[in-house]
């Protein structure tokens, strides 16, 4: 440390606890309680980054979340590094490592800074105009731009940190722990309201907590002392939860808010380990009180961006709170009274204040008199016309303002300084109010946008509501809180408040210089490097809407969302376009208020919790037998069971052959199952299925097809009549929830008069499906009491059965074309039943098969899979399933749509079979089908929907949808692939056992 910039009397910094950290590779020291910014300033480091476009040196400018310049890369571990963090918000911890962004090769020597010398050629929208054309050049430009721009580095490895989410419900949520937030919290909690107070800093008190000025007193105490006592008194309130280091990120409708709590970011690397890093609070509050305060505005003048130019109130916080001097010869430049508070604080701490440059003619407030009493020099009606110094400010040039403020007059004065404090007045933080949908109004007196009265259960209090004087803040907050919470009195009545009040006001959005605007650099948006000139240029080029100007000039589009720049941009636009600011409106503030890491947003839903997984009751058996699994919706289904070194193809071929040659066993538990009871059950089925259900006998099963109202196939499955008014419906695995919800929808909204009830039993039953010529023999061993003869138990029928004392429902239905039984048993017994069947089948080489074999076997029979062979554009007629559409029924869901002009077109895409010329060539699912590849443009007639090599037919088979396919049986087509074309012939959809002999074999 070359200079001693630390004073010793701050109670917020623990000077006994030294912390070492690294900035740009250099080891430095700070103290517990410091932010990275305060520690850097204490080390006399101002230059922390380069600006985005011109790579001008930039320094720490603020002490909070609005910081545009001091954006650093935190950490250098490839899984933990974090770009775009604000040095002003990072609490110092042992082992912290940070580097500058936006500069290459280093912050002190930056190649991109050459842009600064070219800057007359980089006006607003330079990137848009120059690099957009010709488009083919973009690749070349991109490299150059990315290399020299570089907004930090993303981590390249998975985030090791743990994040968490919590829901929180409360009566009153207070955002902001400054003086008005504290008043609100105490009042609400004292009145039995479940209250939560959020503060983004590590402790409460806002700016009042370090306000130890004679001019600001409450009940004869300094305001900071009074507030400290109030904070202590909060601890005894039972209904109050205080969360510090918690930033409100988003304010949505119905008082749903997201807040990010920082749990370990301030801890040393060792202390952080294995702890939850950040927690996202999902808050639903009955009432919300916004007390987010205000932020100081900069002033817009020539070369106002040099390192060492800092907001005046931040200089005050650095000296009064952190005990850090931002310089040793400080000048202050202001248009309002608050800079005098800084001047007094500096002067009392022994810092040399050169002068205060005030654009106003005078000010008679007590704080200014206090400053004069201390001998601080004031240049009334003056402005800074230029600043000097490259990596740090060295001097300023000032001149007298003309009476109308548009020009400068007289001689130029030079003033040496190592720091310039600037204050352009105050902007209420209305971001959260507008995020919640609130509309703003403009107050001309001091040029601020303020919340209008909100309709939702919400108020804004304190300086975010436009109260800037201490007595207004307390009195108005107290009154608003009482009214909002329906409370008669509070602890904050009749306080004796003394404060300096500002009477004289003056504002100039763009301060004049002795040089013309074209020759100056008055920066507006420090992060995105746009100047007042750019905004004026945009207006000259015809942009009128503030939203357009924003995008054209990129003003306000940085990671800080232009928190500092927006007001001046608006002011300059209004002035230039000669419209009133209130009429111009503002740009939209979008969540999050400050950037959130992805980890916080995702919470614990990473890795195995990324998506929900559902398991069948037989799952463990498949795992033991080393099955490969397939995701079907959320289900984990056994896909195939490879033996030793088998490939997937080999396993599927083996399983498919075994199922037809002897016996196969499939876990069909995932099928949706709906229990239907009630006197109108048959009627209901008639209305939602295309076929007729009235005459289905008890104990019989029927295949049903369900359509959408537009006539397109929606789902299918077998439904069994268990009793007179009792059915069990099955749906596809993926369609289960939607089918039930759709049936409830029709029942509740269209046909409430029907007496029918649905109950999902999908998870109650496990389903074991045995198929193949030996399936009957196997089942007879498992359930010896059941008469399995074809007369007693034919295809498409059902029997109740007992295995020991456990009930089973056995359906003789087939999705493979083989003789096949599906046994439903209560899930807890399903694995046991499966094992029993497997043991009984051993002598027949019973082979477990997965979903891939199931798909292959049904394709051999031409059975469709809803969702694979159909895609929401296919009618049953397109599927050549006209037989399933009842002619007798007047109506069913989707019927009317089946004879719309579009659905009766004969050239619709229709389901067909495909055989390849080369029987060993297996088509790719999704491949296009054409007739004539030479005719340009090539007409795509359809595509392959299912394709397999059938071991039972010893050839490749496929299903496809083809334009006018029904009429094309026997026709040759071409499937063009990347390196070849495949010849195919259109066939019927059934490839195997066209007469269904195997069902009873």
């Amino acid at each position, binding site marked *: 440390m070359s200079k001693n910039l630390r004073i010793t009397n701050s109670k917020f910094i623990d000077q006994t606890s030294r912390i070492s950290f690294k900035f740009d590779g250099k080891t430095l020291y700070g103290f517990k309680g410091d932010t990275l910014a305060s520690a850097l300033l204490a080390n006399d480091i101002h230059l922390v980054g380069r600006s985005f476009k011109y790579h001008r040196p930039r320094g720490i400018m603020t002490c909070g979340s609005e910081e545009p310049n001091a954006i650093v890369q935190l950490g250098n571990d490839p899984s933990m590094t974090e770009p775009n963090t604000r040095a002003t918000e990072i609490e110092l911890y042992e082992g912290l490592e940070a580097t500058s962004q936006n500069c290459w090769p280093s912050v002190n020597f930056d190649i991109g800074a050459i842009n600064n010398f070219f800057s007359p050629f980089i006006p607003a929208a330079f990137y848009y105009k120059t690099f957009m054309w010709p488009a083919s050049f973009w690749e070349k430009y991109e490299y150059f731009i990315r290399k020299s721009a570089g907004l930090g580095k993303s981590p390249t490895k998975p985030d090791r940190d743990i994040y968490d989410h919590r829901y929180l419900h409360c009566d009153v949520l207070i955002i902001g722990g400054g003086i008005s937030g504290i008043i609100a919290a105490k009042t609400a909690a004292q009145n039995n309201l479940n209250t939560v107070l959020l503060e983004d800093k590590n402790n409460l008190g806002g700016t009042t907590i370090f306000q130890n000025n004679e001019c600001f007193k409450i009940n004869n105490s300094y305001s900071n002392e009074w507030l400290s006592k109030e904070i202590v008194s909060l601890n005894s309130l039972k209904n109050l939860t205080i969360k510090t280091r918690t930033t409100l990120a988003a304010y949505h409708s119905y008082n749903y808010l997201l807040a990010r709590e920082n749990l370990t970011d301030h801890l040393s690397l060792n202390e952080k380990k294995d702890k939850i890093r950040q927690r996202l609070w999902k808050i639903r509050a009955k009432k919300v009180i916004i007390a987010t305060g205000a932020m100081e505005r900069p002033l817009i003048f020539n070369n106002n961006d040099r390192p060492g130019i800092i907001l005046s109130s931040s200089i005050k916080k650095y000296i009064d709170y952190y005990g850090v001097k931002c310089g040793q010869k400080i000048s202050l430049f202001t248009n309002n009274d608050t800079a005098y508070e800084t001047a007094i604080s500096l002067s009392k701490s022994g810092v040399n204040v050169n002068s205060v440059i005030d654009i106003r003619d005078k000010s008679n407030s007590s704080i200014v008199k206090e400053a004069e009493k201390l001998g601080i020099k004031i240049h009334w009606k003056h402005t800074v016309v230029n600043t000097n110094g490259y990596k740090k400010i060295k001097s300023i040039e000032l001149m007298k303002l003309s009476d109308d403020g548009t020009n400068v007059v007289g001689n130029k004065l030079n003033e040496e300084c190592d720091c310039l404090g600037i204050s352009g007045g105050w902007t209420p933080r209305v971001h959260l109010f507008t995020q919640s949908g609130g509309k703003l109004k403009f107050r001309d007196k001091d040029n601020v946008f303020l919340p209008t009265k909100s309709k939702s259960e919400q108020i804004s209090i304190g300086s975010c509501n436009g109260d800037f004087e201490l007595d207004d803040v307390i009195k108005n907050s107290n009154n608003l809180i009482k009214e909002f919470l329906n409370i008669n009195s509070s602890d904050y009545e009749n306080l004796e408040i003394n404060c300096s009040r500002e009477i004289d006001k003056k504002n100039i959005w763009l301060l004049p210089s002795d040089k013309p605007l074209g020759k100056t650099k008055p920066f507006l948006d420090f992060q995105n490097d746009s100047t007042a000139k750019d905004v004026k240029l945009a207006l000259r080029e015809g942009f009128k809407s503030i939203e357009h100007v924003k995008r054209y000039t990129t003003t306000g589009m940085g990671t800080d969302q232009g928190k500092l720049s927006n007001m001046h941009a608006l002011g300059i636009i209004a002035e230039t376009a000669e419209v009133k600011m209130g009429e111009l409106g503002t740009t939209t503030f979008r969540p999050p208020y400050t950037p959130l890491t992805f980890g916080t947003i995702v919470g614990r839903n990473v890795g195995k919790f990324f998506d929900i997984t559902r398991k069948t009751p037989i799952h463990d058996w498949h795992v033991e037998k080393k099955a490969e699994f397939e995701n079907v919706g959320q289900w984990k289904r056994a896909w195939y069971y490879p033996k030793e070194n088998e490939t997937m193809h080999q396993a599927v071929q083996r399983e498919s052959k075994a199922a037809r040659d002897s016996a196969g066993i499939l876990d069909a538990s995932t099928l949706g199952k709906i229990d239907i009871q009630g006197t109108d059950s048959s009627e209901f089925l008639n209305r939602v299925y295309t076929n007729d259900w009235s005459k289905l006998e008890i104990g019989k099963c029927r295949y049903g097809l369900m359509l959408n109202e537009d006539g397109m196939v929606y789902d299918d499955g077998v439904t069994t009549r268990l009793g007179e008014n009792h059915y069990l419906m099955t749906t596809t695995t993926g369609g289960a929830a939607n089918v039930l919800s759709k049936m*409830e929808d029709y029942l509740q909204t269209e046909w409430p008069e029907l007496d029918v009830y649905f109950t999902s039993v999908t998870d109650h039953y496990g389903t074991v499906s045995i198929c193949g010529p030996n399936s009957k023999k196997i089942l007879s061993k498992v359930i010896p009491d059941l008469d399995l003869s074809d007369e007693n138990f034919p295809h498409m029928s059902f029997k109740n059965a007992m295995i020991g004392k456990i009930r089973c429902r056995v359906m003789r239905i087939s999705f493979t074309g083989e003789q096949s039984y599906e046994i439903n048993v209560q899930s807890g017994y399903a694995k046991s039943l499966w094992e029993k069947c497997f043991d009984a089948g051993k002598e027949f080489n019973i082979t477990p098969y997965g979903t891939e074999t199931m798909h292959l076997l049904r394709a051999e029979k031409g059975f469709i899979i809803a969702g694979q062979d159909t895609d929401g554009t296919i009618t049953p007629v397109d599927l050549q399933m006209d037989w399933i559409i009842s002619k007798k029924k007047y109506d069913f869901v989707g019927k009317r749509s089946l004879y719309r002009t579009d659905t009766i077109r004969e050239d619709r895409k229709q389901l067909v079979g495909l055989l390849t010329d080369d029987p060993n060539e297996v088509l790719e699912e999704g491949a296009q089908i054409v007739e004539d590849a030479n005719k340009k443009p090539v007409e795509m007639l359809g595509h392959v929907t299912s394709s397999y090599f059938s071991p039972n037919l010893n050839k490749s088979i496929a299903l496809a949808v083809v334009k006018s396919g029904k009429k094309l049986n026997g026709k040759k087509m071409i499937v063009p692939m990347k390196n070849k074309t495949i010849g195919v012939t259109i066939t019927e959809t059934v490839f195997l056992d066209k007469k269904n002999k195997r069902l009873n074999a």
Partner: protein
Amino acid sequence: MFLINCPYCGERDQSEFSSGGEAHIVRPKQPKELSDDQWAEFLFMRKNIKGVQFERWNHAHGCRKWFNMARDTSNDKIHAVYKMGEKPPIK
């Protein structure tokens, strides 16, 4: 994220619900009598207005009941929820 007052269960978070589009579209009793255009009107045509819109919602992860909602699409204010079969309580 809305807070929706299910007419059966009370106030619940929006994540428990699913939305089902425009309300008060009655399925024609005699579809056969309708022309293609009339059927298309029922099948496809939906209002999309700025202002108060009547919508169907389902308390999918709660009581599974469908109900109606009058919601202002410009500010998401829910003016009323009412049961299926009931007339909208506001215009």
